[in-house]
């Protein structure tokens, strides 16, 4: 290549980099929509297509990120004054960070009249704690459950356990017969928090403890709590090979490919499991309580909200889209496509597994750290996730976990200071 060609190429490349795409006047408004729901992209693309066919002047692009990095990416994007127009926001404290910083636009009933129909309880996850304003349209309620492979259990003549000991018995029988009983791993701390959300409430007494600890009457040092998370240790022998290194993707793969009999996780998995393996015959159960005559607790929470970037140049278009997400039509489509419980009122659940989840919610308790202790840093979730990894690796006792979490939270939870 002669030097002149190189120089020419460089100039061309530079010009390509610098010039904005030629401005065309009739271009539709383009909205970007950031999310952490990588698995749900296909469904969002379909719902967006419906919206676009009704609103030909608006294009929406759904861009998902790795869930564990989403908040950081979103945060630095919004501070940069860039960020998306439509934001998939988490609920509770995860929303508070952005609302308190003024990054997201408040949405009152006048701007989004559809929100009037939502129940007050669903809307708590969409409210800023400081100012009490609404910042988003809630999209789903999630419940933490045990998924099981019906075929594998039937093959080994195992029936659903009625008590904690029976549950351990089932796991043991599976292991004895060479089946990996639990797909769960510990490489990603949040999957351990989910595990604790399934195992612990039955042993700490569900909402009674939640009320007590959020009102400051007790702390996580309470043996009621530490003995409850200690039960997680009983599951270690039944988790996937090398579970300390098993990440979320591997957990899902193990269950989807029928290499593990059970998967302790959240109701958001249903749609993904179905989509990945059409032949997977699975259902859910609530982890049984200590005794067979006790109804089990399940942890549940408002998953998150759709919000609007306060600095979006396309506020009207964004509002149009946000109002669309609050319609029963959207909610129904969301539930049908993704098999998740939409937060929109009036949605009919058809999925049998999801119906099952719904019936468990009769005895639901708030998912403790997410609902109660994510309002400031360090959050209960961060602290618990790290400490649980240490506990599962055997380098921390349950009592130390309780101590660690309480001590960390005392930075901003006054009642936790001794």
């Amino acid at each position, binding site marked *: 290549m002669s030097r002149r060609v190189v120089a020419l*190429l*460089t100039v061309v*490349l*530079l010009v*390509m*980099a*610098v010039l904005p795409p030629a401005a065309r006047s009739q271009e539709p408004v383009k909205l*970007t929509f950031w999310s952490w729901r*990588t698995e749900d*992209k296909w469904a969002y693309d379909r719902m967006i297509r419906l919206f676009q066919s009704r609103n030909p002047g608006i294009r929406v*692009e759904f*861009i*998902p*990120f*790795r*869930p564990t*990095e989403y908040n950081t*990416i979103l945060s*630095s*994007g919004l501070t*940069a*004054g*860039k*960020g998306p127009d439509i934001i998939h926001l988490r609920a509770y404290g995860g929303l508070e960070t952005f609302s308190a910083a003024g990054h997201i636009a408040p949405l009152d009933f006048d701007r989004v009249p559809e929100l009037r129909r939502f129940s007050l309880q669903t809307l708590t996850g969409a409210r800023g704690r400081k100012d009490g304003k609404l910042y988003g349209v809630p999209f789903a309620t999630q419940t933490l459950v045990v998924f099981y492979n019906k075929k594998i259990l039937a093959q080994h003549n195992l029936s659903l356990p009625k008590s904690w000991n029976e549950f351990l018995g089932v796991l043991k029988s599976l292991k004895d017969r060479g089946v990996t009983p639990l797909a769960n791993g510990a490489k990603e701390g949040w999957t351990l928090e989910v595990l604790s959300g399934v195992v612990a409430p039955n042993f700490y007494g569900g909402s009674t403890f939640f009320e007590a600890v959020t009102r400051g009457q007790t702390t996580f040092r309470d043996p009621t709590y530490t003995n409850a998370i200690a039960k997680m240790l009983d599951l270690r022998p039944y988790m996937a090979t090398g579970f300390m290194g098993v990440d*979320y*993707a591997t957990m*899902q*793969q193990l269950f*989807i*490919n029928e290499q593990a009999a059970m998967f302790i996780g959240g109701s958001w998995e249903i749609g993904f499991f179905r989509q*990945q393996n059409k032949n997977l015959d699975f259902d859910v159960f609530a982890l049984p309580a200590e005794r067979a005559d006790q109804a089990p607790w399940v942890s549940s929470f408002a998953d998150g909200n759709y919000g609007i970037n306060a600095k979006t140049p396309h506020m009207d278009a964004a509002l149009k889209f946000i109002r669309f997400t609050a319609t029963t039509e959207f909610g129904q489509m969301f539930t049908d496509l993704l098999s998740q419980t939409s937060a929109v009122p009036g949605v009919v659940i058809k999925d049998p597994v999801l119906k099952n989840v719904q019936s468990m919610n009769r005895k639901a308790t708030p998912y403790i750290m997410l609902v109660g202790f994510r309002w400031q840093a360090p959050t209960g979730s961060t602290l618990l996730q790290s400490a649980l990894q240490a506990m599962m690796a055997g380098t921390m006792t349950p009592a130390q976990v309780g101590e660690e979490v309480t001590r960390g939270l005392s930075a901003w939870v006054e009642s936790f200071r001794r």
Partner: protein
Amino acid sequence: MSARDRRRPRSPWGPLVQVLLVANAVLVLAPILLMCLSAFKTTREIFQNPFALPAVWSLDNFAKVWVEARFGQYFQNSVIVTAASAAILVAFGAMASYALGRFTFRGNDLLYVYFLSGLLLPIRLAIIPLFILMRNLGLLDSLWSLILIYAASGLPSAVFILTGFFRTLPADLDSAARIDGAGEWAIFTRVMLPLVRPALVIVTIYNIIPIWNDFFFPLVFIKSEHLKTLPLGMTTFFGQYYTDFAALFAGLTLAAVPVVVLYVVLSQHFIRGLTAGAVKG
């Protein structure tokens, strides 16, 4: 190099040495080879026969990754950023080095040391002010933010290497040209630059590989999907296809191939270029 053979008597450890060398070569090459092989397989095959050759040499994974995962776009961005920042830094670096290496003026040494100080300063630790600076300049989320920071932070190495070269050129070269009536610009481009061409190659390679591979600055500066460079795009891609091992391996292979091919063709230049900061001469 062949003189080396005569340097010391052949030791009786010869065979053992060869075993060691081969073992390390396998350790280096096997993972890369396995990655390339896996890219042709299906996910199921990867899990079941990880070490076997693919049953069918299928390009499906590559096609999927290139089209669905926007690899084409990422690739283009990486090329633009790398080419533009290398062009700017070599041009500006050569001009400054020419002045520093061939002219005597007050403050010459000071300016030289000023540029060289950049070799010791870890620029990444200034990422917060850079973030705010780029934001104030309206350059966040544009390829310019990357081009400017790469060009600027590459200058110290360019000045260091090129000034050294300019200084070694015979003193009467430019004076002779000047007597012939050549203009300053002509002396620089026609007489001087061709003579330091090997150094220009070293400077270019020393800088373009780290720029091509950089992940940190795009992570902080780039937010839009269509502006992501290859390393940053890879993380998005891994987030989206995390259950599809076959696609992941195809993506990794696609991202690695250009550099590996270029390296195999130009390995001597690469080795000299990339160790330029640590090896003199």
